[in-house]
C-alpha cells in the first residue's frame, strides 16, 4: 500500500533543530548559565594552565635564542680514579684553532680562595661563592654584560681588582660600584671594579668573583707547571666556546679531543642552551596537578549538566507530549535533548576557552612573554566540552525519547 510506504518522517532541518534544541537555554537563561559554569571553569583552568606554560616556555626559548644556542661549555671531568681532572693550560688556544669556532673564553676556579665582605666574617660563611680567574673576553662569550663599573682589562687583570657576578654582588651586599669599594678575597683586599648582569647561559658566572689570571697567579698562587718546567698561570676549569651556528654539533664532537688530546675522556662538554631548552620543555610536567584540577572541575560540570537536563526533561513533559503529537519521532526528541546538552556544554566550553585565553594574555603581558595558546588547549577544551555534553545529555535524552506520548500529555 503506497500510503504506508510513503510514511517517512521528514528530517528536521538543522536550523530548526538548533532552534528547538536551544529552547531550554533561551527560556531558562540563568539556569543554563549556572550549569554551564562548571564546564567553563574546568575548560578555563585547562586552557590557562596550558597557555601559561606554553607562553612561559616561549618566553624562555626566546631568551635562549637571544643569548644564542651556539655556546658550548668545556669543563674538567674526572679521572679514572675519580679525582678531579685538570684541563691543559693550552686547551683554550687549541680550541681557538678549530675552524668554525668564533670565540673562546675560559675561567679557572680557585678552590683555595674565598671571598668575604670584610676580614671579620667567619671563614665558613662563604655564601656559596667561588673565586674564579677569568679571561678578558669572557663577557661576549657567555652572553652577558656589565651592569655597573667595568670589566677586567689588561691592566686590572694583574692587579687586585675583582668583578662580581650578579648573584655574588647581591650576596656580598654590594649593589653599586664606587671608588674604594673592596672585598676580602683570598686573605687580602681586592677592589671591586664592576658588577655583571645575570648570565643565563652560564649561571656559574653569577655566583663568582672574577679576577685576572695574572692576579690569581701573583696574589693567590694559582699556577700550573708548563711542559718545560716553568711556572705559568693556573689551568682553566671551564672553557666557553662560541661556534658557528651551523657547525655547533661538529665542534661539539671534536671539542674533547682538542681540549685534552691525551685524555679526552677527562673532559666534559655541554651545551647550556640545550639543557635550558630541555628544562623549558620539562616545565609542562609540573602542570599535572592543575590539569587534574581542571579535569575534576569538568567532571563536576558534567554532573551539573546531566542533573539540569534530567530536571529539564521532567519539567518539559508536556512539551515532549506536544512535540510527539505534532509528529516528532522518538529520535527527534532524543536528538533535541542531546543537542541541548551539547549546546549547554559547548557554551561553557567557549566561555572557558575565552576566560583561559584572557588569563594567559594578561599574565604573559605582565611577564613580557609572547602569548601562546596551544591548539591542543583550546581545541581540546571545546572538544572535551562537546564530549561531556554528549555523555551528560545521553541518559536524559534517552529518557525523554522513551516517554510515551500519552504519559507526557497527562497533566496530573
Amino acid at each position, binding site marked *: 500500500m503506497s*500510503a*504506508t510506504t510513503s510514511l517517512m*518522517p521528514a528530517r528536521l532541518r538543522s536550523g530548526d533543530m538548533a532552534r528547538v534544541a536551544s529552547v531550554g537555554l533561551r527560556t531558562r537563561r540563568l539556569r543554563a548559565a549556572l550549569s554551564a559554569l562548571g564546564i567553563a571553569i574546568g575548560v578555563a583552568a585547562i586552557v590557562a594552565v596550558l597557555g601559561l606554560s606554553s607562553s612561559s616556555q616561549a618566553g624562555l626559548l626566546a631568551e635562549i635564542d637571544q643569548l644564542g644556542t651556539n655556546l658550548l661549555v668545556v669543563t674538567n671531568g674526572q679521572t679514572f680514579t675519580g679525582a678531579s681532572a685538570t684541563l691543559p693550560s693550552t686547551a683554550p688556544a687549541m680550541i681557538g684553532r678549530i675552524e668554525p669556532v668564533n670565540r673562546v673564553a675560559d675561567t679557572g676556579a680557585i678552590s683555595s680562595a674565598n671571598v668575604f665582605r670584610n676580614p671579620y666574617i667567619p671563614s665558613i660563611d662563604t655564601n656559596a661563592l667561588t673565586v674564579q680567574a677569568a679571561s678578558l673576553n669572557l663577557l661576549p662569550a657567555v652572553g652577558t654584560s656589565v651592569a655597573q663599573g667595568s670589566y677586567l682589562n689588561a691592566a686590572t687583570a694583574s692587579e687586585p681588582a675583582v668583578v662580581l657576578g650578579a648573584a655574588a654582588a647581591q650576596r656580598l651586599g654590594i649593589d653599586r660600584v664606587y671608588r674604594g669599594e673592596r672585598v676580602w678575597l683570598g686573605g687580602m683586599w681586592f677592589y671591586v671594579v664592576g658588577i655583571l648582569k645575570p648570565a643565563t647561559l652560564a649561571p656559574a658566572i653569577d655566583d663568582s668573583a672574577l679576577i685576572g689570571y695574572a692576579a690569581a697567579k701573583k696574589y693567590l698562587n694559582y699556577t700550573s707547571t708548563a711542559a718545560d718546567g716553568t711556572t705559568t698561570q693556573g689551568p682553566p676549569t671551564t672553557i666557553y666556546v662560541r661556534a658557528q651556528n651551523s657547525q655547533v654539533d661538529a665542534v661539539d664532537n671534536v671539542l674533547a679531543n682538542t681540549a685534552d688530546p691525551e685524555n679526552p675522556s677527562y673532559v666534559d662538554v655541554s651545551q647550556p642552551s640545550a639543557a635550558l631548552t630541555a628544562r623549558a620543555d620539562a616545565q609542562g610536567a609540573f602542570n599535572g596537578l592543575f590539569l587534574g584540577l581542571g579535569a575534576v572541575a569538568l567532571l563536576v560540570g558534567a554532573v551539573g549538566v546531566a542533573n539540569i537536563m534530567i530536571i529539564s526533561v521532567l519539567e518539559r513533559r508536556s512539551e515532549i507530549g*506536544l512535540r510527539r*503529537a505534532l509528529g516528532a519521532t*522518538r529520535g527527534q526528541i532524543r536528538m533535541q535533548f542531546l543537542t541541548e546538552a551539547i549546546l549547554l556544554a559547548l557554551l561553557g566550553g567557549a566561555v572557558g576557552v575565552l576566560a583561559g585565553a584572557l588569563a594567559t594574555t594578561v599574565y604573559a603581558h605582565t611577564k613580557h612573554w609572547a602569548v601562546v595558546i596551544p591548539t591542543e588547549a583550546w581545541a581540546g577544551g571545546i572538544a572535551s566540552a562537546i564530549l561531556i555534553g554528549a555523555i551528560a545529555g545521553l541518559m536524559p535524552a534517552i529518557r525523554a525519547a522513551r516517554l510515551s*506520548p500519552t504519559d507526557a500529555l497527562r497533566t496530573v
Partner: protein
Amino acid sequence: MSTPNTSPTTVETDRTRRDGWAGANGSRPAVLELHDVTKTYGSDPPVAALRGVSLTVAQGELVAIVGPSGSGKTTLLHIIGTLDQPSSGTVRIDGVDVAGLDDRQLAALRARSIGFVFQQFFLAEHQTVLDNVADGLLYGGAPVGERRELAAGALTAVGLADRQHARPTHMSGGQRQRIAIARALVGMPAIVLADEPTGNLDSVTGAQILALLKQLNEQGATIIVITHDRGIADQLPRQVQMRDGQIVSDTASNQQPAVVANSVGGNATEARR
C-alpha cells in the same frame, strides 16, 4: 471495505488539500475507521478501557465524542491520535491501517494527518503567536518561510491575523485556544482532534470557540471534539456517546446517511454482545 486513499503523501500538496476541503461535499471518503477496537491496561487485574468500539467518520464531519470521565473517551482520543495502540481491532486513519506502523511511521502519520487541540493549549510562551502556529508544521519538513506563510493564513482563519507577532503570555484563554486551533489546522490535517477544547474557558469564550470550530468545519475541516459536557456535544451535528468503554449511541444515522451503514453495523455488533 477498502477506502480510496485520497490523502496526499507529501507536505507540498497541502495547498491542494485545502482545495480538497472546499470541494468535499461530493463523495465523502472516510478519514477515520475504527473497527472493534479494544484497549486493556495493565495485567493484574486488567482494566478494559475500550471494549469493542467501531466508529467511522467521513471527511468534513464535525463529531462530538461525549461521555463521563472513565467512559474511555480519552483512551479513544489517544488511539485515534495514534499516540497509543489498541489491544485489538483495526484503526484506519486517512486510509492508512495503523497496525504494524513503527514509531517513525506513526510520527509521520501524525505530522501529516492529525491535528491536536488540547484543553491546556500547550503554547510556547517564548515564541510569537505566528511561530507557535508555524510549529504545527515543524515536523512535516517544510522550510520555515513556507511554514510561516501557512501559519499566517491559519491565524486569519481563527481571527487572530493582527496578533501574529505578539506573544501568547498575556493573551486571554480564548485567544490562546484560537492559536492552538490554528496550529492544529495549519497543516490541513485529515482529522482535527480537540480534547475538551473549552474545558479551561468560561462559557462565553467556550461558545465562541465552539462557533469557530463549526465555522472551520463548514470550510471543510474534519473535527472530532472530545468532551464530557453534554451541552457542548448537543450543539454539534453528530454526537457519539460513550459509557464504560463502549459507544452507547451515535446520532450519525439521522444526519449522515453516507456512513449510516458502517455506524449501525458497528453498533449492531456491540448490541449483539
